[in-house]
């Protein structure tokens, strides 16, 4: 186990370098002049351009720029925006908000998705099963911004049950609706994966054994069946956290949450490449760590998977 963990951690290094370089190269390849419009109506002074070019190695090729960026990054220096604001500062203020939102979404996914999946998996083709199938199809088909605007308008504006936007305090109660919006498509996928998994294992020999042992149905389902059916669901949930954080941009926009989505969008528009890269680099880290955690969770859920 220890050796496996070490190997996995070492594997993260090339993956991290590869992904960050790709991001860096992509941002670098975006056409346009980073100084366009920076200095108001007129062209920026040559002095300023020379200073910035030197500072950010803008006259060098992408490899040199990337190398110097990584060198700073490894020392914890994310760099500054063109307006001299520390990028680490932006990350520190926006990341917790997005993380909070994504975790709420994840919790909603787990509870609703798993619950619906178990109930329908046990009784396929019943009324509840069809209801869940149709409603999840709706959630998958509808784009997030439609679900978001619809719920905001209905619950926030028409019925006044929630405040249409989230305050800067990011209270948990305020995050439930945005969390549902963010996780809506995933809820549907989780429900469907859980349903299939439960239905598949429902007929497994060991479930039959558990019944033949005379165990109460509650225990057969809650202990023997659920534990085996959880494995694909956990995979989906674990890898989804990264996707939720990366995909929060629309939800954050609708509910006025100051998260990374909004920051990345702004940075792309203003060609603040260092900010884009910085935020995405942290996102890559979240993905990598979650993937590792999911793999470790496998071993806990299924003892047949052994790590050597």
């Amino acid at each position: 186990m220890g050796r496996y963990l070490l190997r996995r951690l070492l594997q993260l290094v090339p993956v991290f370098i590869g992904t960050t370089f790709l991001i860096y190269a992509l941002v670098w390849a975006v056409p346009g002049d980073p100084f366009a419009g920076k200095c108001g109506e007129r062209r920026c002074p040559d002095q300023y351009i020379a200073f910035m070019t030197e500072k950010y190695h803008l006259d060098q090729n992408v490899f040199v720029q990337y190398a110097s960026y990584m060198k700073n990054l490894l020392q914890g220096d994310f760099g500054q925006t063109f307006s001299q604001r520390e990028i680490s500062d932006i990350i520190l203020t926006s990341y917790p908000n997005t993380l909070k939102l994504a975790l709420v979404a994840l919790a909603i996914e787990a509870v609703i998705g798993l619950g619906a999946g178990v109930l329908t998996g046990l009784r396929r083709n019943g009324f509840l099963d069809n209801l869940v199938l149709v409603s999840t199809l709706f959630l998958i088909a509808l784009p997030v911004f439609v679900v978001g605007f619809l719920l905001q308008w209905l619950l926030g504006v028409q019925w006044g049950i929630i405040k249409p936007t989230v305050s800067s305090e990011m209270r948990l109660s305020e995050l439930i609706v945005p969390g549902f919006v963010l996780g809506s498509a995933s809820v549907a996928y989780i429900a469907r994966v859980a349903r299939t998994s439960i239905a598949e294992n429902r007929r497994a020999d060991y479930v039959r054994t558990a019944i033949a042992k005379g165990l109460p149905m509650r225990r057969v389902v809650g202990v023997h069946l659920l534990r085996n059916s959880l494995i694909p669901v956990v995979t989906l949930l674990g890898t989804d956290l990264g996707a939720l954080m990366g995909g929060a941009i629309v939800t954050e926009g609708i509910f006025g949450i100051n998260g990374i989505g909004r920051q990345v969008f702004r940075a792309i528009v203003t060609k603040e490449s260092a900010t884009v890269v910085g935020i995405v680099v942290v996102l890559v880290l979240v993905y990598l760590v979650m993937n590792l955690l999911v793999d470790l969770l496998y071993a806990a859920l299924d003892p047949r998977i052994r790590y050597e």
Partner: protein
Amino acid sequence: MSDILVSEQSAPGPGGSGRPAGRLLEVDDLRVEFRTRDGVAKVINGVTYHVDAGETLAVLGESGSGKSVTAQTIMGILDTPPGFVTGGQIRFHGKDMLRMSSEERRRIRGEGIAMIFQDALSALNPVFTVGFQIAEQFRVRRGLGRAEAKKRAIEMLDQVKIPNAKGRFNNYPHQFSGGMRQRAMIAMSLALDPEVLIADEPTTALDVTVQAQIMDLLAELQRERQMGMILITHDLGVVADVADRIAVMYAGRIVEEADVYDLYAKPAHPYTMGLIDSIPRLDEKGQQLRTIKGLPPNLMNIPPGCPFNPRCPMAQPVCREKVPPLLQVGTARASACHFAEELVNRD
């Protein structure tokens, strides 16, 4: 059909000791069908057998003959749908289990009637330790505490002769060998000291040397505990040493029932004869193995008359018209063949 045996013939059932009432477990004219999209398969068509304390009944038949489905119906683990019981009774201590509440039936499972499955690897839950799965019986069904349940589970592992039972307690099923897994399965099913044990092809998934060990263990435990045992198998060799009586099944019916000795010495049904003939023999080395020609009938479309008639070397016109009932032949055996008497009285 037991009515035919008992009342019409007014003689004790095959191998019985003359006490038709008060049987431990009786299956009486059981009928089960599988309703599928392609049609209705009549899987069990009036099966009647019984088992008493301390005796072993072997149920013999090829795959699809309905021997396992009968067992699943007794246990109440028949997959419904597609399987539906359409008739008959399953009496445990004289009480029809098919009419009990599901809670009443559940309590019989494990304590009254327990079951061992063919493939212990898939029958044991892969994500729980073997010890947990045995101790679970003591904890959930007997309400014992964790430590006491563990102690009892280790005792059970000891009884089925798993070496280093204490150290093996925390192993997962995949860490056991095939034979050990089946032993663990036996330990689990015997935990609550059941009165009847149904062993559904317990050795089919094992290699030959281990098969013998497991059969010996089962026979020993059955004797010690004076359990009634229903041994389901398609292997005539396995049966000979352990069974008291044999019931041969074909197309969802019992075609012959007899004491082990009688059955081997003089089968009273052409199907049984074919089965015995097809056992490989050492004194016929080098010759082609004998088989029963043809295939078992399609259960969605069982031929009229005796279901075995298309494959039967002795078939007569009557066999294509009338279903032969399971009738008493001689003293303590029954056969469902129109020519059972001739078969038994031949030289």
